[in-house]
C-alpha cells in the first residue's frame, strides 16, 4: 500500500498512523513530546466529540483529546 503523510486531524476514526513530525514550536512542542507524541509512535483515532472537536486519540496506552488547532500541526504516516 502507498504511504501517505496527513495531518492528525484528518486521520479517520478507527485508523492507525505513525507520528511523523510535530510542527509545534518551543514549549508546546516539548509538551507534546512529554505526552508521548514522539516520531515513530503509533496513534489511533478513538472517537470524536459531539461537535467534532476535540477528538480523542489512543497513544502509548492512554487516551488524549486534542483540539483541531493542535492536531492539525502533527503529521502522521498512514498506509
Amino acid at each position: 500500500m502507498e504511504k501517505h503523510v496527513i495531518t492528525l486531524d484528518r486521520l479517520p476514526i478507527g485508523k492507525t498512523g505513525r507520528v511523523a513530525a510535530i510542527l509545534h514550536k518551543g514549549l508546546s512542542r516539548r509538551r507534546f513530546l512529554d505526552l508521548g507524541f514522539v516520531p515513530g509512535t503509533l496513534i489511533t483515532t478513538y472517537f470524536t466529540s459531539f461537535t467534532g472537536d476535540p477528538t480523542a486519540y489512543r497513544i502509548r496506552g492512554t487516551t488524549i483529546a486534542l483540539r483541531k488547532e493542535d492536531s492539525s500541526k502533527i503529521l502522521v504516516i498512514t498506509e
Partner: protein
Amino acid sequence: MKFYKVRDMDFLMDDNFPRPLVALAGNPNTGKSTIFNALTGLKQHTGNWPGKTVSLARGTFYHRNVKFCVVDLPGTYSLLANSLEEQVARNFILFNRPDVMLVITDATCLERNLNLALQIMEITDRIIVCVNLIDEAAKKGIYVDGDVLSKELGVPVVATAARRGIGLFELKEMIFKVYSGKVKPSPRKVNYGEELEKAIGELVPRLENTFSGRINPRWAALSIISGDYSIEDLEELVKIRDESREESAYGYSFFSQLPGNRGLK
C-alpha cells in the same frame, strides 16, 4: 502564561522538612497516593484536576529505627513547569533535595512513565524507580523485568502492587539502602551530542560557582540551553542565561537560534 515566583511558595522555601526526606513523584493515576498511604498508614485522599489547590501530603514511617519523612508530590507527566503542579514538583526536587527520590511508575504503561523518571534523573542521583500496579499489568499479560530495567537506567527498581501490599517491604528496604548509601544509584545520563555537551561543559563550572551545590549544575545548564521558559522564576539562573547569551566569546552562536529562546526577552 503565569509564572509563580518561588518565594510565593512558602512551604518550599522553609527547609523545615525533617530528614531523612523521601519524596514521591510520578504520573497521575499511577498509585502514588496508594504507596504514600501504604508507607505512612495515613488515609490521604487526593485528586488532580484543574482548579484543585496544589498541596503536599506529608507523613512519616519507621524502618530499621530510622524515621523517614515522606512527601507526596503532585502527579505530573513532566517537570517542565508548564503548570503549577509541575512547578511545585520540580521546585521541591530542586531545592529541598530529598534524600531519596521515589518515582512511581505504572507497569501497564511504563514507556509513558519513564519520561518523568528520566527528567528526575537529570536533577538528582538518589532515585528509586518503583514499578507499581504489577498485578494490573499481569492481568494484561505484561511482565516487567526489574533487573534489566535497573541495569538500563542505572538506578534501583522495585516492583510493587501497593493495593495488595506486595513489594512494600522491599521498597522500604531499598529506601533505607539508598539513604544509608549501601546502594548508590548512578542514573544513566543522556548524551546530547558533541555540540551541546560542549556548551554544557562550559556552563557547568559557572553554575557550580553561583549555586554551590544548591542546584544540580547540569540540569541548570540544560534548562538554559533548551530555552526552558519555566526557569523565569529562578532569578540567578536567568541572570547567568542572559549573561552567557551576550558573551559571544562563549561560542553560543547557536544559542540565539534555538526556537525556545525567541520569545524569552
